[in-house]
C-alpha cells in the first residue's frame, strides 16, 4: 500500500478527493504520487489502490470507490489503512458536498 503505516482512523463513509496539488504517475507496481505543496513523494503499491484513489472524487464515499475498484470485504481494512496514510500526508482531502 502506501509506504507509511497508519492507524485505521479513516472515515470510509465520507466523501474524499485527491488534493489539487498532487500529481499521479502510474507505474507497473501501482503509482507514484507527488504533492507540490508539501513536496513529498508517496507510493501506491498496487494498481487497485490507484483505481481507488482515482475513483474517490466520483463516488459518494471512499467505501464506494473501493467497491468499484474491486476491493473485497476481507481486503478493506488494508485499503482503509492505506487511505488513512494518504490523508495523513495531505495527498487526499475530505470533499465538501
Amino acid at each position: 500500500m502506501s509506504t507509511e503505516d497508519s492507524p485505521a482512523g479513516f472515515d470510509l463513509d465520507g466523501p474524499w478527493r485527491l488534493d489539487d496539488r498532487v500529481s499521479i504517475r502510474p507505474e507497473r507496481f501501482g503509482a507514484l504520487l507527488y504533492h507540490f505543496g508539501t513536496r513529498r513523494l508517496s507510493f501506491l503499491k498496487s494498481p487497485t489502490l490507484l483505481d481507488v484513489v482515482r475513483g474517490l472524487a466520483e463516488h459518494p464515499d471512499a467505501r464506494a470507490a473501493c467497491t468499484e475498484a474491486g476491493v473485497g470485504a476481507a481486503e478493506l481494512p488494508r485499503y482503509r489503512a492505506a487511505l488513512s496514510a494518504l490523508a495523513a500526508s495531505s495527498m487526499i482531502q475530505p470533499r465538501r458536498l
Partner: protein
Amino acid sequence: MSLVDEFQYGLDAPICLTWELTYACNLSCVHCLSSSGRRDPRELSTAECKALIDEFERMQVFYVNIGGGEPTVRPDFWELVDYATDHHVGVKFSTNGVKITPDVARRLAGSDYVDVQISLDGATAEVNDHVRGPGSYATAIRAMEHLADAGFENFKISVVMTRHNVSQLDAFKAIADRYRAQLRITRLRPSGRGADTWNELHPSAAQQRELYDWLVAHGENVLTGDSFFHLAGYGEGDLPGLNLCGAGRVVCLVDPVGDVYACPFAIHDTFLAGNVRGGGGFTGVWRESELFTELRSPQSGGACESCSAFDACRGGCMAAKFFTGLPLDGPDPECVRGHGEPALAGVTSVPKPSLDHSHRRRPVPVTIGMRRPPERACDDSPLAGFGR
C-alpha cells in the same frame, strides 16, 4: 516485489532528475563534484532547455533539481524556472545564494512549485569558507535572511558532510530552525575537484558513526537525498529514506551541454549514457541507452556478497568506489565494516577526470585556524610549518 526491488530494475521515467544548467560559477569550492567555474560554450540554449522541459512534462517528471555551477548566473535562469513550473515540472534549485535578493526571495515565496536549496558547508564562516571560499558563508546567510524575511518556509539548507563539520550537526540544525528552513545533509563524494580533497575532507570512521547515530536520532526531519546508504551497513537503526543507489534506475544527471550521466556524482565518460541532442532526446537515452540498461540488470556484489551487511548497504556508492580507484563490485571506500581501507591500500591508479571547467586559477583552501592570532606568542610552535 518490494519497492527497492522495483526500483533496481528501473522506471520509465526518473523519479528525480538533477539538471546542471551551467558550469559557470562565481565560487571555486574545493570539493565541487562537477569541477565547475567556467561556462562551457556548448551549453544548451534557452530553446533547447525549453524543449527538454517539454520532454520532462511528457514523461511526468514531477520536479527537477537544478544545479550547476551556479545556475542563477544564467541570464535565462528565471525564464526557465517559470517555463518549467508553467509546464507542471516543479523546480528545486541549489544556489550559493549570490542572486537571492529581497525581491527574488519575495517572488520565490509566492510559488508552490519552486523550492530553494542554499549550500552551506560549515555552521561557522571558518569551516564553511575553508571549502567554499572567502565570503561564501556571509553570502549564504544573507540569502537565508532574505528568504525568511519573505516568509519562504521550509527552504532547504544543504550541507556536504566533511571531517570539519560532522561535529557541527546540532549547530546546522539550529541555523535551519532559526530561518524556518529544513536541513539537508549529503555525503561528500570524491567526484570532480572532490577527488583532490577527499583524503583531507572525508569524515573519519569515528565521525561516520557519529553521523549515523545523529541521523537515527534526528533523521525524521532531516533530508539526506538518500545519500548515506553505505551507513545502512551499521544495521542497528533504520535510516529514513529508500537507501539504495538509484543511478540510471530512478535518478540521473543532465549536464549543461546535454550529456546524460547515471548520477550527479558520476561525471565521467564511464557513466555517460548519451546526449539529449541525439535523435531520441532525453527519453531515448533514459529508456534505451546501453549503460542504463546494464545498470538495471542484476549487479554482482563481488566479495561484498558474503558480508552480512550486504543486504543493507548493497556495496555502497558506485561513484565513491570509481573515483577512489576501487572496483565497482568491491567495498565502498568508507565501508562501515572497515573493508574500505585495506582495499584503498592496494589501489595503484585512480581514473583521470573526463571534464574540468575549473577557473584557471585553482582554488586554494583557506586554512582553518590560521585567522585567529595566537593568544600568546608561545602558543605558536616555533616549528610550525616544518616537517609537513
